[in-house]
Each structure stands twice: as structure tokens, then as C-alpha cells.
């Protein structure tokens, strides 16, 4: 992870030195890719570079950022949480039912309720993974279908529609008392907290330690099971928060809410440089990853690519981003040697 600092480069020309400094940053690959993409899109559609459009992009990626950060913490411990989409679906439906029944309830209660429900679902994941020794991908694959099944069982196939939700709840995500939509502010706050947590607290550093070497971590006095339980618990809590925002933003709770979203969160983390084999990943990287996904989605519409081809273009761009990142990384490693 930190191999770039240990090797001092031999005498080299000024230019290659500059390139080397630039490329040393883990996020260099994706940043260059984003800038290139923005440049190309602006050539085709000048309306891309407007404040309105960027507000749009930010609004669209807020939920993704929140859940992708949770996913990142899980992946850093060498795990994966495929159940986030079903947790969002279940919490969204339950919160929507409660809000429909109690329209006078203060909005903050809905948020707290969502996070509490999410924490129960997340701790169930954490429990079977740590106490039951079930591999994370199996455990969360199982709860992916269990939680989704519970959504159908819970609602008996009905939906909660826009007219059944009170206005103040709908404004929770879209209101702009502070200039920016609340949802964007919440996402930024979550990002700041997670950044501080991962980099400046003992527990945060332990998360990296567990992912880097799960066998050595206990010898360093780290309670491995606690850390792993914690990341799944956090994943549940943040998924619960995302669920409330989801209902508020899209003004409905459906039985298939967020289905398939788990792969987007993994994509945002991985494109943002989080290593699937654990121990590596940064908050700025993930933010860039989510931003890239948001820009891709936004720009494909702006440059008038048929909606039917957009998913293919998204997939292709994700592949290109991952490949170019790998390409740059191997160059960096070669330079460091």
C-alpha cells in the first residue's frame, strides 16, 4: 500500500519526475479518466459544464456515495456485502408503511427508525459471518434473497405511492435550506465522518489491519471478529439511512426498490481503487468512483445515446476504467522498482 514512499527515485529528468509524482497518487488513474471523459463530453454537449448539471449529478450520486462508502469498509476487511440492495428495499418498505400510518411524525424519527431497522439487518449479517463462520459472499447472498423475500411478505405485493406520503417527508431529500439539497449535504457529512473514522481513529486503522493480514491482526491485539461485525453493522445502518432517502427522493416504496443496486455500490468502490482482496481503499477514491459512475450516466443522456445502449456503454466504460487503472498501477510499480 505504502510502497511508493519507501523507494527514492534515482536521478531522472524533470519531466518524468513530474509524471512520477502525479502518478504516485492511487487516485491518479481515475482522475485522469474523469477529466478526459468530461473533456470529450463537453466537446459534444457544452451544457455539460453548467452548475445546474453538476447539481443534478450530485443529487443522483448521493445515495450511491452513502452505500458505496459502507461497501468500501466491508471490502477493506476482505469481505463483501451483496445484501445492501435488499436491506434498502426492506427498510424502505417498512419506513414507508410507518410514515403512511403516522403522517404527523417528525421526519427525524423516520430517519432514526430507518437506521435502527438497518442496524438489525446488518448485525444479522455480521453475526452469521463472525460467529457462524459463513463466508461473507455466501452469507450476504443468502440474506440478499431472504430480505428481498421479506419485502414481498411484508407488503403482500403492494406499493406505497407518492400521494400516501406527507410533504415534509418528501422534502427531506430535496429541500434546500442550506443552499444544496439536504441529501447532498447528508452524503458529504457521511463521507467526512467515514474519512475521519477510517484515517484517524484506532478502530478505523484496525479495519485496514484486518483486511491486510487477517491472520496477523489478532496477534497485534485486534479483535478481528468485532471489527468484522462492526463493518457489517455500519453497512446496515448506512443502508437504512439510504433507504429513507430513497423513499423520500423517489416518493414511493416498491417491492423491487434498489434491486440490483448492490453491484453499483461494488462498482463504485472498485472503480475508485478499492482492492477486492482487502486492505486497500480510500474515501476520496470511492467518491471519485461514484462521481465517475454519475458522470457516465449523466453524459450518456446529454450526448443523446439511445437509452437502450446506455447500460452497455456504462458497463464498457467501467471495464475501461478498471483496465486503465490497472495499466497505470503496473507502470507505477515498475517506476518504483
Amino acid at each position, binding site marked *: 500500500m505504502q510502497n511508493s514512499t519507501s523507494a527514492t527515485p534515482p536521478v531522472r529528468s524533470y519531466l518524468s519526475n513530474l509524471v512520477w509524482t502525479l502518478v504516485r497518487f492511487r487516485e491518479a488513474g481515475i482522475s485522469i479518466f474523469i477529466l478526459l471523459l468530461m473533456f470529450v463530453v463537453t466537446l459534444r454537449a457544452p451544457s455539460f459544464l453548467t452548475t445546474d448539471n453538476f447539481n443534478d449529478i450530485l443529487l443522483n450520486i448521493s445515495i450511491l456515495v452513502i452505500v458505496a462508502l459502507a461497501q468500501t469498509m466491508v471490502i477493506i476487511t476482505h469481505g463483501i456485502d451483496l445484501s445492501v440492495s435488499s436491506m434498502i428495499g426492506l427498510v424502505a418498505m417498512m419506513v414507508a408503511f410507518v410514515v403512511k400510518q403516522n403522517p404527523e411524525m417528525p421526519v427525524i424519527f423516520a430517519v432514526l427508525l430507518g437506521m435502527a431497522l438497518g442496524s438489525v439487518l446488518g448485525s444479522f449479517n455480521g453475526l452469521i459471518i463472525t460467529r*457462524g*463462520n459463513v463466508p461473507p459472499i455466501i452469507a450476504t447472498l443468502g440474506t440478499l434473497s431472504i430480505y428481498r423475500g421479506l419485502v414481498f411478505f411484508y*407488503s403482500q405485493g403492494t406499493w406505497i405511492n407518492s400521494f400516501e406520503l406527507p410533504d415534509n417527508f418528501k422534502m427531506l431529500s430535496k429541500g434546500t435550506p442550506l443552499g444544496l439539497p439536504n441529501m447532498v449535504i447528508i452524503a458529504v457529512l457521511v463521507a467526512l465522518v467515514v474519512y475521519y473514522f477510517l484515517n484517524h481513529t484506532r478502530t478505523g486503522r484496525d479495519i485496514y489491519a484486518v483486511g491486510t493480514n487477517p491472520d496477523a491482526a489478532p496477534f497485534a491485539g485486534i479483535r478481528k471478529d468485532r471489527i468484522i461485525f462492526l463493518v457489517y453493522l455500519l453497512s446496515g445502518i448506512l443502508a437504512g439511512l439510504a433507504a429513507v432517502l430513497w423513499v423520500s427522493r423517489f416518493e414511493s416504496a416498491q417491492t423491487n426498490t434498489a434491486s440490483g443496486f448492490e453491484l453499483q455500490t461494488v462498482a463504485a468502490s472498485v472503480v475508485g481503487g478499492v482492492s*477486492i482482496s482487502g486492505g486497500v481503499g480510500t474515501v476520496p477514491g470511492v467518491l471519485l468512483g461514484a462521481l465517475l459512475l454519475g458522470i457516465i450516466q449523466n453524459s450518456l443522456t446529454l450526448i443523446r445515446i439511445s437509452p*437502450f445502449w446506455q447500460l452497455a*456503454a456504462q458497463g464498457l466504460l467501467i471495464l475501461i476504467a478498471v*483496465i486503465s487503472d490497472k495499466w497505470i498501477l503496473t507502470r507505477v510499480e515498475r517506476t518504483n522498482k
Partner: protein
Amino acid sequence: MISSSSASDTKSVSLISENAPKSSFLSRFLRWEWMLVGLIFIVVIVNTQLTPYFLDARNLSRTSSDFMEIGLMMLPMVFIIITGNIDLSVASNMGMSASFMGLLHNMGVNIWVAAAAALLLGTLGGMLNGYLISRVKLPALVVTLGTYAFYRGLAYGFLGDQAARGYPEAFTYFGQGKVFQTLVPFSVALFLFMAVIFGLVLHRTSFGRYLFSIGNNENATNYSGVPVAKIKFIIYTLSGFMASLAGLVLAARFGSTRPDNGTGLELAVITAAVLGGVDINGGKGSMLGAGLSLLLIGLMRFGMGLMNIQGQVQGIAIGLLLILSILIPSMVRSLSSAGKNINWRSAFSAFLFLLVFVLFFVFFFWSRAAVIANI
């Protein structure tokens, strides 16, 4: 791939057992298959008690073809998981191939030419996965996550909001026909034929042994002179081919193709393989176990369907089964080793968790009651 917190523990245990006499390893291996057979018996008995329509040959014959696409994709998935990798793109590849065939059919191309072209496209899709994983050395999960979106996107690109239909009867035979006037659907016969071939390759050839050895220790296998990269490339290519074959069977069974055909099936495929005893961390598994688990899932879903349980609610049972299949053996192991000294702190925290989950379900039913009553 993704290993659990305890992956290293279980790995070291399995290494020790491999040094032990061969017979004990074999008996350990066989136990899981017997467990599946037992579960299948239980499911059959429970279902025959609950509904008279369960043991109806015509019903069973019709429902069996519902699971053959999953089965066809499961066969190469067993290979891939045994090497410690994964392929998330199979269902998307299936959709892409079927849609491509539908597109060509809509353009008036002969159906057999279209089918061959679809098989070629699917195989190319598998090769792309294989190339990126074995040569560019990207993690399998990342690559197949990307192609999962890419191939599904191509499926939408090919057909848009259209559906392809009106396939000739000679083609729909692949999904709807029966073999020689018996009740055995053609797709089941195709699956069984393929399963035998894949099983023989896995358990009776050196290629199969290499797969296990890659799953146990990829570096050591590589240094032993086994062409690891080439083998990975081959199994992903196979996976692409089988996915497109499954796509053709699906198109033939429905008699039409839509670009969203088979969305989410990759998880069913992985579930079937893992429930069959294929270790997600690689190195362990058998084709027989995977086949039995497919039968078990099929019978369970069929029985629940007869009892009017929605498909997604059935997922609760399948998900629980998947988790319990790993949870129970590991619980038994840890209880028998640490059963003597129960400490009060862990008992207390267990009680606390139980309380939380009970409260959750109390809230679950309470909050739901008022709304459901109004429907």
C-alpha cells in the same frame, strides 16, 4: 476469492486432513452428498403430504425444464468456483446471446444461422472475461461485474423495447419438446448429457485435477508447470458458451426473447453450486453434489409454488437453506470444541441479539398489520 474471516482456519484444517489417510477424506467428502439426498427425501415426503399434485409425472416433467437454464450455467460455474474464481456475468451473457438471436431472427435471418451466431457471440463474451482475468490479471469479481452490466446492456441495445417471437417449431423443440414421446423434456436430456461430460472432465481427467489444484494454491500450481492462465481462459470461455446455450434453451422454452430475460439468475446459479458443496474459496466440490442441490432447489421451489407461495417469498427458504448449509456444520464444530466452558458474557450477548431480532419481528408484524388490513 472473497474469503471469510475464518478462511485461513478452514484452509489449514483441510490441509491437515489431506495428509490423513485417504479414506477419511473420502468419507468426509461423501457426507455432504448424503445430506443432500436426505434433504431431497424430506422435501419429497413433506410435499406429497401437503399437496396431491406434487407426485404428478406431467407436473414434474413440466417444472423440471424450468431449471435447466440454471443447470446448464451451473456446470462451468462449478469449474470456476473450484478454481477460487467467480463469474457474475453468466445471466447477462445468456440474455445477450438470446437477444442477439432474436435480433437476427427479426431481421429475417435463418433461425439456425442466428442460433449459431448467438453461440459464437456468447463464447466470445466468455473469452473476453477469460482474457481480462488470465492475461490482464484483473480480479474475476471486478471483470465479471463489469461485463455483467456490459452484456446486459448489449441485450437491451439489440432488442430495445421489442421482443422477438415467432420462432419455428423445429427450434422451440429445444425448450418445449420431449425426447422420443416420453415425458423427459429435451432440455433435461441435454442438461444430463452435459452434466455427465462436465463431471467426467472434473473428476476423471488431469484437467479436472488442475482445477482443484489451482483452487488450493494457484501460485504453487503455476510453479509446477501447469498452464494456469490458459486453463482459466478455457473455463471462462466454456462458461460463455454454456451461458449462450442456456440462452437458446430459454428462448426456445418461452418461444420469445426479451432483453431482460434471466435477470438475476447468476445468483441462483451460484447458490445452486455452493449449496452443492462447492467451496466458494476454491479447491473443493463435486459435480454430483451440484446436481443434487439443483434437484433439491427445484423440488423445493416446485412444492412451494404448488402451495401458492410467491417466487420472491420462496427466496427466503432458499436463502436460509444456503446459509444454514454452512452455518450448521460450523456451529456443531465450534460447540463441540468449546461446549465445556460456557462463559456468561457470550451467553448474555447471545440473549441480547435474540431479543433484538425478536423485537424486530414484533415491529415487523405490528407495523404491517394496519396497512395490510386496508387492502
